[in-house]
């Protein structure tokens, strides 16, 4: 067994890792894990006042601090029926644009670019690419300057509060920001050229769903009360759970999300894919120049999408400031009520962020926060799996580690948000035995035999099921035993499918794979038509596995090969003893 393990991924914000286990020609397991300990913020807010919540929740994440504050403000103000004046909305947009610039320039120039130019860090890069590093740092500093002006500090500033701001920026401060933004435009254009023309490798590529906020005004933007999904669905943010429905995987403290049973991506790439045609001015021009079909399936283009958004942000800042300067500073606004519910969504730099609160008599009784990295975790794992499997099949195993690294970093994961890296394991001979043993420890398994008994080795799954039954093993099913209403066995029990599967391996090779991973692999899943006919609730999919045997032949009418017969006997022995 061989494991490629990146246990602490450098140059991302927080602590995460990825491991891939390789058994011969098959990637049997890819896990994206978050080592950050649990902090229980949602529980910490219970019983606190909305103001105390605002002091606390931005501390979830340093880099998206203002996005957390903004999402919380939108949710709390909805719950308390506080309507803020147009100037407040504009100034909040400005602070949010500052965070976008700060976060994107940090990620693009200091964290991502060293990969493509072959350096371990941006400082080392500075000797040859001094101009790029300087531009990156200057942009980031400018983003920080906006955040500091608007929020009071670089990180965790308290100035934006319910109803507005504690202190409004002066005309001089705003004019300074406007003028600096205009000066930065040529550098933002260069950034787009640089990031859009990087040689992004074509592994991994696979279609996914994209989810982002839907700005009501028909323009590009980072907030909205609805979300738009690339399949055409429009969902009200109050119903965010339809999209996020979080679940939990034991190997990470980060919750996971799926929409209609499928992993989806959020972030700059989602926004450009869903709303890019709304971009105006220079950003619109460059969008038309660079956008192509690969952006819809290759997560590495998130770097290009972030560059477009930086350009948009620099372009938008002078407009926002000109409008805001026409308006007087509003007086503080009192709450209209002290009991209510509210959900707020904003686009954090790395994707849509939800805050939902119930407030009763001025105290919080329920909090739910769904962060972008939690939503991206499934797709990060899926793209890493595709990268590892594809490279393995092409005989480029040595590239797996760096490629997974590149994929994770492209998602710009913000780990403290979701509550740090890559690990590649080589499976030992007969690894399926250990995995099966681990799976069955303390739990009973349900088995489902698939295949066709008249097609030589394809009979293996059904034959194995019958043999297990004969030996008195309970909860063994055949395909036809299952109807739409009778999910097999106890819901809390893992389901193991038994079938002949063409892994491209030696006949008789046995492999145990998590089912969801099988479904990610187009070349495996289309050979598993039987699976489609099995009624399995989506939550059980997470605890379902495929115990596959490589057939020698699945020709009609033939007998089972010696190798497969031996494999069946081996599994039987392992399961019965």
């Amino acid at each position, binding site marked *: 067994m061989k494991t490629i393990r990146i246990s602490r991924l450098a140059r991302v914000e927080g*602590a995460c890792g990825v491991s891939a286990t390789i058994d011969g020609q098959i990637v049997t397991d890819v896990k994206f894990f978050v080592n950050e300990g649990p902090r*229980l913020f949602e529980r910490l807010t219970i019983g606190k006042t909305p103001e105390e919540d605002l002091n606390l929740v931005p501390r979830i994440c340093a880099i998206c601090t203002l996005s957390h504050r903004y999402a919380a403000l939108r949710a709390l103000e909805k719950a308390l029926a506080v309507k803020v004046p147009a100037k407040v909305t504009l100034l909040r947009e400005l602070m949010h644009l500052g965070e976008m610039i700060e976060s994107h320039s940090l990620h693009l120039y200091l964290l991502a670019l060293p990969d493509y130019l072959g350096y371990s860090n941006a*400082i080392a890069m500075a000797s040859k690419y001094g101009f790029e590093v300087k531009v990156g740092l200057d942009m980031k500093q400018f983003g920080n300057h906006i955040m500091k002006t608007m929020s009071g500090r670089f990180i*965790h500033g*308290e100035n934006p509060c319910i109803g507005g701001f504690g202190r409004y920026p002066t005309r001089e401060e705003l004019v300074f920001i406007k003028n600096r933004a205009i000066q930065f435009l040529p550098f933002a254009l260069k950034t787009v050229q640089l990031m859009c023309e990087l040689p992004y490798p074509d592994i991994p590529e696979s279609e996914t769903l994209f989810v982002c906020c839907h700005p009501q005004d028909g323009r590009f933007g980072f907030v909205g009360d609805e979300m738009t999904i690339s399949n055409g669905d429009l969902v009200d943010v109050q119903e965010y759970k339809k999209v996020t429905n979080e679940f939990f995987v034991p*190997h990470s403290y980060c919750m996971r999300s799926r929409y209609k049973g499928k992993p989806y991506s959020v972030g700059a790439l989602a926004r450009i894919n869903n709303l890019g045609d709304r971009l105006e001015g220079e950003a619109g021009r460059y969008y038309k120049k660079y956008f192509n079909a690969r952006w819809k399936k290759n997560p590495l283009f998130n770097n290009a999408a972030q560059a477009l958004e930086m350009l948009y942000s620099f372009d938008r800042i002078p407009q926002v400031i000109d409008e805001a300067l026409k308006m007087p500073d509003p007086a503080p606004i009192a709450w209209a009520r002290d009991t209510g519910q509210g959900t707020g969504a904003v686009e954090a730099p790395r994707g849509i962020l939800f805050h939902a609160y119930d407030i009763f008599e001025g105290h919080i009784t329920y909090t739910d926060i769904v962060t972008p990295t939690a939503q991206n975790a499934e797709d990060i794992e899926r793209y890493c799996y595709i990268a590892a499997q594809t490279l393995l099949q092409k005989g480029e195993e040595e590239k797996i580690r760096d490629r997974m690294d590149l994929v994770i970093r492209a998602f710009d994961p913000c780990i*403290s948000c979701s509550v740090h890296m890559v690990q590649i394991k080589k499976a030992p001979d007969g690894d399926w035995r250990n995995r099966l043993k681990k799976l069955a420890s303390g739990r009973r398994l349900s088995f489902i035999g698939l295949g066709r008994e008249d097609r030589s080795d394809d009979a293996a799954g059904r034959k194995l099921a019958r043999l297990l039954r004969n030996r008195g093993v309970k909860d063994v099913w055949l395909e036809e035993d299952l109807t739409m209403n009778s999910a097999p066995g106890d819901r809390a029990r893992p389901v193991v499918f038994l079938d002949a599967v063409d892994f491209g391996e030696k006949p008789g090779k046995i492999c145990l794979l998590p089912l969801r991973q099988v479904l990610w692999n187009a070349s495996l899943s289309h050979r598993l038509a039987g699976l489609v006919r099995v009624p399995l609730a989506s939550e059980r999919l997470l605890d379902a596995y495929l115990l596959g045997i490589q057939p020698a032949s699945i020709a009609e009418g033939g007998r089972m090969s010696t190798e497969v017969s031996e494999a069946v006997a081996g599994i039987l022995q392992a399961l019965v003893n």
Partner: protein
Amino acid sequence: MKKARLKIGIYELTGCAGDALLILDCEEELINIFQAADIQSFLMAKSDNIDGELDLALVEGSVSTEKDLKELLDIRKRSKVLMAVGICATLGGPQATFLDPREWEEHLKKVYGQTEMARTRPLHPKPLDAYAKVDYYLPGCPIDKEQFLSTLIRLLAGHPPEIHRFPVCMECKWKENDCLLNQGICCLGPLTAAGCRAVCPSHNLPCVGCWGPAEEANYSAEYELLLEKGFDREMVLRKMAGFSGTRIANFASRLRGEKK
């Protein structure tokens, strides 16, 4: 003869990574820091990190998993001087406000269900000094750039840092702000360590206590003062305990016990 550059490691345990980010935010000074010191490990900034002997380790975040603990003990063993950086490392941070481990465990179950953690076991969150000797403390949520740079410069020159012992009120007075307590706003300035240059009161907003308690602060007197001003007792205790983890929370729970 030129002195050898100090070997420094910057590490993140459980927290928001805000202190490491703030160090990255020292844009102009960052290149100088990389020249003045030999940065052996800084995961957020570079990938060729070396885990060897260190002259100075800067550690942010609380110990919240067995992995955190193992890492902290390893860093301690390799480091001549260890400085806790940020409120999570110095006092435990917001995640350490559930004082009772059983209460914390219940909340943990409510969020993550009964699922066994396969990777690393969570621990009741605690500041670094619950498990290892801490030489210096740099407070803040997040740390302040000026205070960090002045502290680092002193450490690079071989001097101990000078962290303010006085509360936020001093800095607030230097800025000639109007006292918020006199305006009926529940401000924690008198209790909280200075270092932020009274940023919140300077924005007409009350201090939330994110630097943790000032060494000189008189908790009981502040508590009585806030009650006298007519603020709700529970609210005062809750606010006081918000960021300071065990230190003020212990004090608050003692007060709660006495007054009930």
